[in-house]
């Protein structure tokens, strides 16, 4: 397989791959090029999963939501007009996929999303991994005590690194509203965390 480019950063982080490369990749994927489609999936799969996992707090549902996100995105590429970045567009689809699956969620797992799936890193102490999982579970529980708009704004801003304008595009609100929801959410989260 021919790769169009080498990723220059972590998958999903701003700056991973140039815009020109990505535009070419998207155009090829839109035309049905499977290699290009796969490259888009591999570039953003982690990013989308991190978002859906935080939103849903259920690793199985999060994987389903990530899969639905890419199925809808790749087969709906003709609807991508380029008004927002591809990543923002993708995360918007992910938010909606998580909402859809979240409605079907009959139970919530108050555990760390990656706890049961990831094998402990050989270089890391098991106690350290366990501590991180506990910390993640605690933060996830606190995040889910926020109103949905504030929670989404905090997750999209802190974890996905979206700007306020991009958050507005992702969750259908104004840039100002995204900013207010983020600051209210982070303030409330600090109160809940006792900081």
């Amino acid at each position: 397989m021919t790769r169009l480019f080498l990723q220059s950063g972590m998958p999903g982080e701003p700056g991973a791959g140039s815009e020109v490369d990505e535009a070419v990749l998207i155009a090829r994927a839109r035309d049905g090029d499977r290699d290009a489609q796969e490259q888009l999936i591999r570039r953003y799969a982690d990013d989308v999963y991190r978002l859906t996992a935080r939103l849903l707090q259920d690793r199985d549902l999060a994987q389903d939501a990530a899969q639905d996100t890419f199925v809808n995105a790749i087969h709906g590429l003709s609807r991508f007009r380029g008004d927002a970045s591809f990543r923002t567009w993708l995360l918007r689809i992910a938010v909606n996929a998580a909402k859809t699956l979240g409605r079907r969620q009959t139970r919530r797992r108050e555990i760390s999303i990656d706890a049961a799936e990831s094998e402990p890193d050989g270089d890391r102490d098991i106690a350290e991994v366990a501590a991180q999982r506990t910390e993640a579970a605690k933060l996830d529980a606190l995040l889910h005590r926020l109103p949905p708009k504030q929670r989404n704004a905090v997750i999209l801003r802190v974890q996905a690194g979206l700007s306020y304008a991009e958050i507005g595009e992702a969750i259908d609100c104004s840039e100002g509203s995204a900013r207010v929801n983020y600051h209210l959410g982070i303030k409330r989260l600090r109160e809940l965390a006792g900081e």
Partner: protein
Amino acid sequence: MTSEHVTDLLPDLAAGTVSSAAAAGIHAHLTSCDDCAAEWLLIQRLRATAPVAPAALADRITHAVMNRPVAPRSASWGIAQLTVAATVAIALVGGGIAIEQLRHDNARMNTSLSDTAVATGTTDSGTAATAAAYTPIVEPVLGGRSVVAELTEAQLKALLAEMGT
């Protein structure tokens, strides 16, 4: 830098997307502002505990995307085009049949009215008026033509003479 400015930029600092100059300014502020420092700590905790995708997730997604049955766009359009074409064809055929039926009915009614007038020998104005209402379609002088402009001068004179009677 104000606290408001700094808290706006903390997520960008965590993502490494601020300039080195801005980062230096933010860090300088954090050393003197406990409130912003606490927020910075929380943001770092949130990022450090981000869920990790299973190793096989990308493969699973790729498989799902590649194997999703999708109807070819051309086939979808073909069905739509066939539907439109069939609708138009039905409208045209149906319309043609209806027009032909109307012409046939008018001709029959006209013939019936003429026969009645001949049989009774009347020149009843009501009957004549009713008959005249159908003459544009079946008029002996017109010879089956429905447009006056198609008539020859002789036919036109004959028509005027007949109308005069």
